[in-house]
């Protein structure tokens, strides 16, 4: 097991480094002086000078890359051009909001999606199954920012059930929760449909396998057969999907944070672009990439731990 763990971690570190190099190349691919491009119209000579020095633009390319990596390893993602505070501080300041948002959205999606998927798998081709089928397909395809706009329009602006803006003040837990409901719903809705379709297909697959027939041939109750024998196997693919889904979740979070004007890493990227605060943009994109790689590796490891067959082959 350890070997697999080491191999997976090494691979994910390699992927992050490659992503960083790709980002670095993108910055330098653009013709002209990278510092000037990054700063855009507000580029005063001192700012250009400080940014160039910070990025080591005067040295040769390989040294720049090494310097770039060096900074990242030390957690120094460069200086926030506007506030002159280290980018890392700004980015990690906003990260918890996004993580809370994604976490709530996924829990909401799992709590509804998985039982829904199980139910429609067990009642295949009944009216309810067809209806949930159509609804979940509709949920999957509804773009998250459209759902966000509509929930803002209906539940916040028109019905005033939930606050329309911000994440609620720090101290008051329930105020934060009420600010979390709509955004989490906007992200989670498509995942409810996605998870229910996935669990349904995987349940149907598992239910037709021989060992379920064996379980029934030994007179085990339908509940035991379904919830202990079939579900344990059918849920495995959802772990991988959620792990890989982090990329989509972060994208959805970006839109939702902008629509609901909620603080978070997505909003940070959007605002830094409009104010041409590129070091922050690059830093936030980097952190999201690391987040994605961590979540995929984590889901692989959970899968390996849950499924004895994989655990044995390591």
């Amino acid at each position, binding site marked *: 097991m350890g070997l697999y763990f080491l191999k997976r971690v090494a691979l994910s570190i390699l992927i992050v480094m490659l992503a960083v190099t790709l980002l670095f190349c993108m*910055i330098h691919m653009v013709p002209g002086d990278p510092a000037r491009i990054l700063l855009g119209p507000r580029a005063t000579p001192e700012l250009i000078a400080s940014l160039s020095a910070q990025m080591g633009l005067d040295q040769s390319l390989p040294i720049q890359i090494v310097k770039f990596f060096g900074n990242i390893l030390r957690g120094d993602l460069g200086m926030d051009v506007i506030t002159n505070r280290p980018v890392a501080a700004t980015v990690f300041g906003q990260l918890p909001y996004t993580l809370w948002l994604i976490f709530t959205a996924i829990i909401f999606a799992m709590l509804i999606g998985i039982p829904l998927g199980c139910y429609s798998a067990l009642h295949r081709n009944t009216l309810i199954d067809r209806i949930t089928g159509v609804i979940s*397909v509709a949920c999957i395809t509804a773009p998250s920012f*459209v759902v966000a706009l509509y929930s803002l329009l209906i539940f916040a602006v028109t019905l005033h059930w939930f606050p329309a803006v911000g994440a609620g003040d720090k101290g008051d837990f329930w105020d934060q929760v009420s600010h979390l409901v709509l955004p989490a719903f906007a992200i989670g809705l498509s995942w409810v449909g996605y998870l229910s379709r996935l669990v349904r297909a995987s349940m149907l697959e598992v239910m037709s396998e021989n060992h379920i027939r064996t379980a029934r041939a030994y007179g085990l109750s339908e509940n035991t057969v379904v919830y202990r024998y079939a579900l344990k196997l059918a849920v495995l693919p959802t772990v991988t999907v959620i792990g890989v889904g982090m990329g989509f979740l972060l994208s959805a979070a*970006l839109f939702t944070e902008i629509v609901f004007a909620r603080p978070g890493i997505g909003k940070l*990227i959007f605002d830094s672009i409009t104010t041409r605060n590129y070091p922050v943009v690059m830093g936030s994109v980097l952190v*999201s990439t690391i987040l994605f790689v961590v979540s995929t590796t984590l889901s692989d490891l959970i899968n390996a731990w849950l499924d004895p067959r994989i655990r044995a082959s390591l």
Partner: protein
Amino acid sequence: MMDALHRISRDPLGLLGLILVVLIIASALLAGLIAPYDPIKLNIIDRLQGPSVDHLLGTDQLGRDLFSRVLYGGQVALKVAFISIAAALGIGVFLGMLAGFGPKWLDNIIMLFFDTIRSFPTVMFALATVALVGPSLGTVIAVIIVTSIPTYGRVVRTQTLTIKSNEFVMAERAMGVSTTRILRVHILPNVIGPLIILASMDIPTVIALEAGLSFLGMGVKPPTPSWGSILNDGYTLIRNTPWPIIAGSIPLVLITLGFTFLGESLRDLIDPKLRKNV
């Protein structure tokens, strides 16, 4: 092909999907003819009107007719979708088969490339690129192509690996059939079927992405109409009138439902094993 259309028409959802798709593509292509107004012409006097006889979906803050803008917006959406998916499909199939059929080291390198691209959340990668290169339709298309290649590449690679494990590939090799012929004659036809379905199911995601970027002002430069920019106007006017949001979202949702229902019934058609599950 005809018998496929015939069988789709028997499945209600598939038929609904087909109708929606044809409707929206037709309305986008014929926008020039059926759009009642010039989508860009300002008309400040009757701005922010609700739906009426002469403005089916009402007007936006500059008095432009929303119905016409929606029609023209369709052109942008479909152009982005078809170009980027065609390109991503082509490159993805090539790299995927290479990875699936080639030696292990090549497989690892290609997979590493896929995983690196995939590790960027799509929208953030798009924003980072737009930040550097400036917003334009070309950038949007380029970004979508790059981020979709891994999706198709990975599916083709897994398919190629499963097909390669079948005995008929070994049988072809034993007859001295060249690798290129095995790929072209024996692997590609078996891979294309499910891939077309994946592409048709992916169109809504790509359209939604274009709309999203335009919504953030990072996609199409105003005043060219795009569903995303209409939604952006709607967002800024959310407290005054809901109509721009409704106008902008209707086509987006319809085309998404259309392609997905169509894709689902196509999948049942082509892959009988999957039909068992539905």
